[in-house]
């Protein structure tokens, strides 16, 4: 029993939250429509959180994720408005962001600069570029309709972003659990020295990790622009803390507290369900904050209590 709480405490917390909302507003909250809403609402947070998970696996921070997302959204929108084809622009922006991530990784892995300050600085730099490119204001008029498909379209009755999220979750779950790269990243996070002594090219893998994080952040930014039909130079700002919150929440799941894709997804769901459910319950704004804070703490205390005996 204890073991179950220890292992799945956060999931149990999530279930309790869902059940509570379900009892309070069965018709609205439990409706299919609402769940398809919830899934859609969490999808972008999920993607960027998985990005954050990648660097957290190697015990690093990437604070540039929100800047990358904003940058990608603005540049994509700008280039589309300039008339370039979306099939050219999207890969190009993802590629550019990947390179940006590699540079982050280079500073961290090769030059040994703390990732927190590295990515804060490169993020600030990128933010400057984004401002410069956009003049500080929203880009929206002239964005071609076909671009909006990604963020607003549907496939088999589910929003396309949900499918994209599923794909990313699956892909990264696979990378982390069934590929050498994934295992090596975990080994670096577990004991960098041991990984190096085992012959793993630690620096290279770290750099790749930062690259992947940046790509996922950029993808989030692009999808966000498509979802909102417009790009805002600080659109990604809201994701930074929330992404890490979900990763940390997820870290309390499974094993010894490492960042992991499934944990992150549970974290994302907890956040998404809370926001959705509290809105449906008509809870006043300030009270939502108090409740969100308390519910998360309560869930963790609950789990912590059962784990404590170690």
């Amino acid at each position, binding site marked *: 029993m204890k073991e179950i709480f220890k292992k799945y405490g956060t999931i149990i917390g999530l279930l309790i939250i869902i059940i509570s909302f379900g009892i309070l507003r069965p018709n*609205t909250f439990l*409706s299919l*429509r*609402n769940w398809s*809403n919830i899934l*859609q*609402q969490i999808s*972008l947070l999920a993607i960027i959180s998985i990005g954050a998970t990648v660097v957290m696996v190697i015990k690093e921070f990437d604070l540039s994720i929100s800047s990358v997302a904003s940058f990608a959204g603005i540049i994509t929108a700008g280039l589309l408005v300039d008339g370039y084809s979306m099939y050219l622009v999207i890969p190009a922006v993802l590629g550019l962001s990947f390179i940006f991530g590699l540079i982050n990784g280079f500073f961290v892995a090769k030059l040994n600069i703390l990732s927190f300050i590295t990515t804060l600085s490169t993020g600030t730099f990128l933010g400057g570029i984004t*401002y410069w490119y956009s*003049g*500080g*204001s*929203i880009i*929206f*008029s002239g964005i071609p309709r076909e671009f*909006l498909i990604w*963020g*607003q379209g549907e496939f088999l009755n589910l929003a396309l972003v949900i499918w994209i999220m599923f794909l990313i979750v699956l892909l990264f779950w696979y990378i982390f659990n069934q590929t050498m790269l994934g295992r090596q990243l975990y080994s670096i996070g577990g004991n960098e020295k041991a990984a190096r002594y085992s012959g793993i090219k630690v620096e290279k893998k770290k750099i790749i990790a930062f690259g992947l994080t940046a790509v996922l952040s950029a993808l989030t930014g692009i999808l*966000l622009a498509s*979802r*909102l*039909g*417009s790009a*805002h*130079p*600080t*659109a990604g*700002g*809201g994701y930074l803390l929330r992404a890490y919150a979900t990763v940390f929440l997820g870290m309390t799941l499974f094993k010894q507290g490492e960042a992991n894709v499934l944990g992150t997804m549970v974290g994302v769901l907890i956040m998404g369900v809370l*926001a*959705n459910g509290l*809105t*449906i319950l*008509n809870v*006043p*704004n300030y009270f939502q904050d108090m409740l969100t804070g308390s519910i998360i703490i309560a869930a963790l205390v609950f789990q912590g209590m059962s784990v404590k005996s170690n």
Partner: protein
Amino acid sequence: ESKEIAVLTPYLESVTTNTMIRAFEEKAEAEGWNVRVIDTKGDFNELANRYEDVIAQGVDAIVMGMGDPNQLRQQINKAVEEGIPVFGGDAGFIEGMKVNVTSNNYVLGAQNTSYLLNRIGSGKIVKLYHSAHPGVYQREVVFDAIVDSRDDIEVVAEHYVQVPGPIENAQQAMQSILLSNPDIDGVWAAWDEPAIGAELAIRQAGRDDIVVVGIDGNSQAIEMIAQGSSIKATVKQDFAAMGDILVEQIKSVFAGEELVDNILYAPADLITEDNAADFMD
């Protein structure tokens, strides 16, 4: 049975948004409606999410409290499909919405810019702005246009005010600007908070020859004007009127009437030393 109205805003923490929404809440509650305010702290994706939630929940009307509706096209369309009317409260207007009640930001910008230029005649001015906010951006556009047309006015420094913490940020920037440009005559602020920051820096530097103007009619700014600080003018949007108009428009829609206008403007008053006392609570 009472009507459910959801007010969604990304900017509840901004003084003006807050005042406007409160004015509306008061009027709407007097009608017996149930008003709920949802704030997403500047996050538009979250804002879109919350739109979806209240649409799924089937509220009777949605009020968009500031924010650019262009970023919420899809959600507005959804609301229309569900037959939920969407009203703008100091937001923008796009197809599908019923109406936007606002003060004309271009006019606000023109009002405080003209006041500043009239007061100083000619000279050097500082611009404190924040283009990311659409309404605030419109004021800037007007300011730029007017200043461009005047050869005797020079913008010697401009500072993009950081949010959150605009007062402190503007104050710090102003301290530096005062040192590098001691000969400035005026400060144009796109809203009142940076104007207050500028005033704090000017006061600290012991200057009294600089004219600062803001927009919004923030009560702290009005008090400062009344006390004879460097802030000489602000433009107060009449939020109470805005709330009234919004409530009237919503009532008409509930009654099944078609609205005539897409955009309605609430009046705005220029507040200076002469009339500041009238506007203090």
